[in-house]
């Protein structure tokens, strides 16, 4: 038995012994997700137990160094753990912007002091982060952001407005892009800075989504005082950090949608529409749409696996996460269009208990943001054209 085989069998046994049965069911709504943070509550005892066991093993973030509360797994081991968790449909014990976005940026650009302060609180689920990038006039053109940070001794004084800040009203800290040099070219005067959302001068105002939920906000900064030591990377070089973080965000978003978990889409459709006497979904057109979808979904899963392996082998293209983000999000939107079609009349109900409060249509509407958040599909295609294909004028 190789070491990796050994690791796999130990991992399987550990998961079997430690993952509560309730945590092996597909995530249905936001309550099923544990986000951590100062004001967090566990939705259930099982969620708490599962989180604590995984945290103690360092497996809330398996591939971060153990000194920060990670699992210290190498990429091959981390992949084995992912596979074994997927095999029993284990839910992630902790979801957070700290894990997906800030952590990788801090590991690359942070000072030792910054890493030591923030990473352990991320792995332990103590601090919940939000992302202060977009502004009313800086969406796709993020680099034109206007939130000002003015120097005042050892501090910056931050004034301006962010928008679409997901979960800003629940977050403890924000990683934020601010303009530290108004005279420089737009990419050259930006800094990446961290601060506490309870700082004086920070306020948030929730925005209602078309799904009827309100997971994002307008976020206002009115003279917020932040120590200069909270800048990650070099002052005025924040764009490098921002872009690096976006690569991770995009890779994460491309994987949205419960790929391996749960029943195959065609069977979900057959549950509601019925099957003919040979067991085929009793809607020939929908059946072929689902089959075509599943072909693409399986292929994308391979591409996602390969992207990780290529990166590990040093052969990845840094902009490839944009390609994956484009394809993964368009696919997830297709998945939910199919689910709506399969749900037919039943999937149009918005409030009834029967529809679990309109779970399916609300989820469908939420996916429409997948090709907008983290950079739109159009921006992703532009990046591929420019950075990978090197097309003229792109």
């Amino acid at each position, binding site marked *: 038995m190789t070491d990796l085989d050994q690791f796999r069998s130990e991992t399987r046994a550990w998961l079997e012994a430690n993952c509560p049965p309730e945590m092996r069911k597909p995530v249905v709504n936001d309550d099923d997700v544990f986000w951590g943070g100062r004001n967090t509550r566990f939705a259930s005892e099982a969620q708490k137990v599962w989180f604590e066991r995984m945290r103690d093993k360092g497996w809330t973030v398996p591939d971060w160094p153990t000194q920060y509360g990670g699992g210290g797994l190498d990429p091959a081991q981390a992949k084995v753990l992912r596979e074994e968790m997927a095999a029993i449909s284990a839910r992630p014990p902790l979801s957070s912007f700290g894990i997906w976005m800030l952590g990788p940026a801090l590991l690359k650009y942070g000072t030792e002091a910054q890493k030591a302060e923030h990473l352990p609180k991320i792995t332990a689920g103590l601090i919940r982060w939000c992302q202060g990038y977009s502004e009313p006039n800086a969406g796709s053109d993020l680099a034109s952001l206007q939130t000002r940070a003015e120097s005042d001794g050892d501090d910056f004084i931050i004034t301006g407005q962010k928008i679409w800040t997901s979960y800003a009203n629940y977050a403890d800290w924000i990683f934020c892009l601010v303009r530290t040099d108004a005279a420089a070219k737009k990419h050259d005067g930006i800094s990446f800075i961290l601060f506490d959302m309870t700082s004086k001068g920070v306020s948030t105002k929730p925005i209602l989504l*078309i799904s009827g939920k309100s997971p994002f906000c307008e976020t206002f900064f009115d003279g917020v005082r932040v120590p200069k030591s909270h800048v990650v990377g070099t002052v005025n070089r924040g764009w490098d950090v921002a872009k690096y973080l976006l690569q991770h965000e995009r890779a994460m978003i491309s994987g949205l949608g419960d790929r391996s978990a749960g029943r195959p889409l065609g069977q979900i459709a057959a549950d509601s529409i019925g099957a003919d006497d040979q067991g085929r979904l009793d809607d020939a057109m929908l059946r072929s749409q689902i089959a075509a979808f599943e072909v693409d979904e399986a292929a994308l899963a391979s591409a996602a696996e390969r992207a990780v392996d290529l990166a590990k082998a040093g052969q990845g293209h840094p902009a490839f996460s944009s390609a994956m983000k484009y394809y993964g999000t368009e696919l997830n939107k297709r998945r939910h269009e199919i689910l709506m079609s399969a749900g037919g009349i039943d999937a149009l109900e918005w409030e009834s208990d029967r529809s679990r409060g309109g779970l399916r249509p609300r989820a469908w509407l939420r996916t429409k943001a997948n090709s907008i958040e983290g950079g739109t599909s159009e921006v992703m295609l532009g990046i591929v054209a420019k950075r990978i294909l090197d097309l003229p004028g792109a």
Partner: protein
Amino acid sequence: MPLVLTEEQSMLRDSARGFITDKAPVSHLRQLRDSGDADGFSRELWKAFADMGFTGLLVPEQFGGSGLGCVEAGVVMEEIGRTLMPSPFLSTAVLAASALSRGGNEAQKSAHLPRIADGSMLAAFAIDEGTKHRPLHTSLQATRAGNGFKLNGAKALVTDGHVADLLVVVARSAGSAGDRKGLTLFLVDPKAKGVAIERTVMVDAHNAARIAFDNVEVTADGVLGEVDDGAGLLDNILNIGRGAVASEMVGLSEEVFGRTVSYLKERKQFGKLIGEFQALQHRAAQLYIDIEITRAAVLKALQALDADIDNAGTAVAVAKARAGTTATLAVQEGVQMHGGMGMTDQFDIGFFMKRARVCQELLGDSNFHAGQLARAKGY
């Protein structure tokens, strides 16, 4: 017949548009939704619709209507689609009026049609039962009892079923699910014993109900058309309804498209109007072409319904299939091109996306109608 509106039809369009955009802009629907209105539409506006003659468009003149056709009904539906005005027009003035005027005997017509025309009666058409629209799979049972029938079963997505004064119910009186033979239409009083109506709050904030029938007694007078031979009548009623919903989707698509093009001319990123980006220009141009093609197909179907309804089936299938895919594309592009703004409830565009989804499902989605076309062509 030229595939353009006549002068009279254009005038009808102008008056419908003037009234609807003035009295029932999207904010009207929003307000009804947010206040949790018990009816989900405005009775006052319905009265005004009646005064303008819209409720009786498809009612023959001798019963107090104007005896116009599907093209005219489509003209009004298209305007409804532009502002998403919730109104019983489809359920009452299109589906029920068609059912009564085409299937009713003199007594039934004179009892109900004048009241539809003058706006004093609301009616709903109860067809769907399962997850999808499958008229021939109707299995709500009508069993003979005395000189009449007893109804047992349940209906879903009954548009305006929660406010109807009269239900037109499609039931199976013989044969089994899937058979063309054995379908009968009934007129049922929603207050009759054994009828249980549950209003369902819908994704699009429009109005529908689930209705259960538990040993509901209907006398022979309640039979609309022929016993066991209702399929032909049903096809015609459904096709008229499909033409109407397709028209609503054309209006909806055009409105979303118009709003999106305006946004492309307003929103700036990278120092340019986003409408300057060729990637978006081409998609807007494609959508324009898509809508124009669908508009033609829908008008063709409406004219076919008026000219020779028994042979309009394939034209209607083409129209409803196209209208569904076009509206879906229009709302998807609409949200996407508005970026984060398109995802907010505060912005109207999401209302269009939700309504388009319901219209797609109503009376058969694009897949259903493409399948109908295939069957009609013999493959």
